């Protein structure tokens, strides 16, 4: 038993829903109690989908448990097939139905349906949403893909994009264009937008592009083994990764590839003088493994940030993230407990967080700017505009995403010079953001935050180190976005020197010590 307040991932059947909802002509019959229909709103509200997810819930109640939930399942299943006329169905159980052991798969098989019935075994008490999506997609591919000849032209499939994925809609469009520029046509995109009939055609492609390892890797590995289709290992998020991906595709298709980079603006934006202020910004990166790995490289090599910590919530990616963290000389944080993440961020006091909706809330609480780079995300992170993460346009978009939460270069200097200006003070936040005066103190559409005080302002000093009043006063003159770091550095410095009091001199000695 583990006490949980907020979760990064839902249960595995929600992962199965992400696959079913992404596809067309597929229906999911889910043995589940009343109330599990809440998951529909993830798609209709958060992602603003205009159709109900293709899911039929059996909706059993307490009074059914003594009698016949199996018949209820069969009736629901038959009704769903009659009403929605799908090409195939997937059947499974949510956490509660798993306990009553009705065996939806076995029941559905006895019904003599004329369409493929794909059973799902998703252990609700061990695994989570990403596993559920990955496993579901794998089962669908395994059941439906048919051996066949390759297309005459060089084609690939794009594997992994789902409903509720982070920017999957736009990533599919961007990567399709990129592949087209490389002379590679797309055979099937799946699960997003694919029908069961399309899934059958997967083996016609020459290779697979694994766009989202979290949700497509099991299927990609199965296709590699059983249909001899290689798949790409590099997810083209960032300038360097995109170039590497292009080279990887070139080596798979056995041809040198040349590409027009004129749409790629990010490198110049990053080299231009205004970006100087980005140099060495200390960032903490947390999210799913794929996005974290991509953003670590972007942060260090393409933005000139300093990566002070990274981690992921999906244990499936623990190994590569640990290895990567080692390369970056930091400790990897592998956890799905947001309190641990908050603790790590508080300790490291980064100047910026690249994270999920959880880290955005943590950032709000701690007064640290945050850019959202990974699922799970709120409704406002499903933008109307074209906003891919992959490819050249993705790199451009990410540059904008990463600088938006920050105070801009000259503004940062002005804040430092005129600290007590009544309008232009540090609590006001970046001037290009609205609502200057206060930290949001209420439930906004963007997710609420009822903390009214930034933690740095009340954070107690380390035990047995006392701030003298003049040093404390001086600390308050330091702009808020570096104050946390200054406080922490000074205290660390004092502790190292064995000082029990921090004076004005200690503050500036520490500043000189950490100067870079």
């Amino acid at each position, binding site marked *: *038993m*583990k*006490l*949980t*307040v*907020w*979760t990064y*991932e*839902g*249960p595995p*059947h*929600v992962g199965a829903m992400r696959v079913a909802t992404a596809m067309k002509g597929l229906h999911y019959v889910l043995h589940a*109690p*009343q*109330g*599990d*229909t*809440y*998951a*529909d*709103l*993830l798609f*209709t*509200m*958060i992602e*603003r*989908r*205009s*159709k*109900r997810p293709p899911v*039929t*819930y*059996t*909706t*059993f*109640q*307490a009074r059914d*448990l003594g009698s016949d939930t199996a018949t209820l399942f069969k009736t*629901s299943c038959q009704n769903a097939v009659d009403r929605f006329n799908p090409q195939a169905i997937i059947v499974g159980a*949510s*956490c*509660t139905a798993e*306990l009553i052991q009705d065996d939806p798969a076995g029941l559905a098989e006895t019904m003599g349906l004329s369409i493929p019935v794909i059973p799902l075994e998703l*252990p*609700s*008490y061990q695994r*989570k949403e990403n596993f559920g999506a990955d496993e579901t997609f794998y089962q669908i591919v395994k059941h439906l893909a048919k051996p066949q000849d390759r297309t005459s032209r060089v084609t690939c499939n794009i594997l992994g994009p789902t409903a509720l994925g982070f920017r999957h809609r736009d990533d599919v469009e961007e990567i399709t264009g990129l592949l087209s520029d490389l002379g590679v046509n797309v055979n099937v995109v799946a699960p997003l937008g694919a029908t069961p009939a399309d899934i059958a055609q997967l083996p016609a492609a020459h290779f697979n592009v694994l766009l989202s390892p979290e949700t497509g890797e099991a299927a990609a590995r199965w296709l590699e083994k059983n249909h001899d289709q290689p798949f790409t290992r590099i997810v083209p998020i960032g300038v360097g990764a995109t170039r590497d991906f292009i080279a990887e595709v070139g080596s798979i298709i056995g041809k040198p590839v040349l590409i027009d980079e004129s749409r790629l603006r990010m490198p110049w934006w990053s080299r231009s003088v205004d970006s100087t202020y980005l140099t060495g910004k200390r960032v903490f990166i947390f999210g799913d493994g794929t996005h974290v790995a991509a953003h670590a490289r972007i942060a260090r090599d393409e933005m000139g940030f300093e990566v002070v910590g990274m981690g992921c919530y999906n244990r499936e990616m623990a190994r590569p993230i640990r290895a990567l963290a080692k390369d970056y000389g930091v400790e990897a944080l592998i956890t799905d407990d947001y309190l641990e993440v908050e603790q790590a961020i508080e300790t490291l006091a980064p100047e910026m967080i690249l994270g999920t909706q959880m880290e955005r*809330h*943590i950032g*709000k*609480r701690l007064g640290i700017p945050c850019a959202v780079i990974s699922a799970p995300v709120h409704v406002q992170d499903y933008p109307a505009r074209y906003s891919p993460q992959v490819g050249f346009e993705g790199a451009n978009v990410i540059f904008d995403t990463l600088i938006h939460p920050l105070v801009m270069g000259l503004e940062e200097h002005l804040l430092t010079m005129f600290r007590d200006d009544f309008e232009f003070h540090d609590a006001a936040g970046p001037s290009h953001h609205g609502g200057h005066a206060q930290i949001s103190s209420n*439930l*906004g*559409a*963007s*997710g*609420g*935050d*009822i*903390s009214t005080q930034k933690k740095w302002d009340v954070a107690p000093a380390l035990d047995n180190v006392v701030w003298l009043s003049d040093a404390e006063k001086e600390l308050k003159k330091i702009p808020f976005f570096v104050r946390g770091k200054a406080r922490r550095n000074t205290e660390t410095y004092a502790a190292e020197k064995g000082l029990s009091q921090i004076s004005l001199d200690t503050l500036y000695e520490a500043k000189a010590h950490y100067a870079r």
Partner: protein
Amino acid sequence: MNAPMPPANGGCRTAPVLKERGQREVFCGLTGIIWLHRKMQDAFFLVVGSRTCAHLLQSAAGVMIFAEPRFGTAILEETDLAGLADAHHELDREVARLLARRPDIRQLFLVGSCPSEVIKIDLSRAAERLSQIHAPHVRVLNYSGSGIETTFTQGEDACLASMVPVLKDTTARELLLVGALPDVVEDQMVDLLTQMGIGPIRLLPARRIDDTTAVGANTVFALTQPFLGDTHAALGRRGARHIAAPFPFGEEGTTAWLRAVATAFGVSEAKFDEVTAAPRARARKAIAQASEVLRGKSVFFFPDSQLEIPLARFLTRECGMTAIEVGSPYIHDALHGPDLDLLPAGPQISEGQDVDKQLARARAARPDLTVCGLGLANPLEAEGLSTKWAIELVFTPVHFYEQAGDLAGLFSRPLRRKSVLRLEAAE
């Protein structure tokens, strides 16, 4: 004395009810925790459940309230399923850890879920045991918010009903007002009744455990929410007497509700008018303005919170709408009867749900406004039907006079929005 006039064509109390069973597009009772944990400031709600329960609470809230909330889920893992003795042991450990970290918590609710009930974790035994361990500082109670037992607002009902047996005894003649209301609305309600000279007034739930809510044979109680059937029964078992009344939505409903209470306490007509005249006039004016676009329009209610019948009464009688179907998850005559009496005959009254069949009826009827849950709203909008998401009616202050205009506004906003947007392509 102008009691509300029953409709000329007879009400809906004896109308045939369409009872359906099938897929229900509703939340389970755990959802009530979202508002209950704000209402009771010294309470913590610990769901004993699965990752699904935690995910529901996070998603249903729509926004995440990111100060550490006073609720959480003890997620069952494979090992808990194997041995129940261990599950109790684990629960004790998690509770001890939680209470150590949150010394401000004075009442702890262990909330049962679908999985905890299916594997029969006895939470009442756990609550007793934990009460003994943590008394007197913390009181531990339990109730079920599971989907197999409760629909959405029934979670609040189960929570309040669990508190009734532990309320102190009293022989005093007191008015007990039952149902979690936003503080501002609660204050208005208490103020109106106090001005009429009614008292002492007690509240369930009280904002804090130390408050003096008690119950006994001389207690009379009024419900402020139409979904409190079990609490109603539990108070009856303690000897308290229920004041049946329409629910306090809109000017007419509020007046009828206040009048029923005033009558029970012998308040004079003159006094009643003196206290209510000004807010009644304000409410009528506000409703008239806010309901302008609602007049002559039709409304279709999908079942959600059990607020549907009183709200249909408000929309038909005070806002000039026509109800096509009024669906409620459950209909409870002792609670909903007075509102059904006033609801003009005509609409199909339905109880329970088979969502696909009900959607077919809504599509055929093409109502001007459909009141439904979050899972259905955008799909129906995409089909050209205007919708009001029902959950907002539970999350917004809508009771009593000063909110009557806001209540009408919640329904008129989708229609106003539709009329102001000019997004269609030119012909």
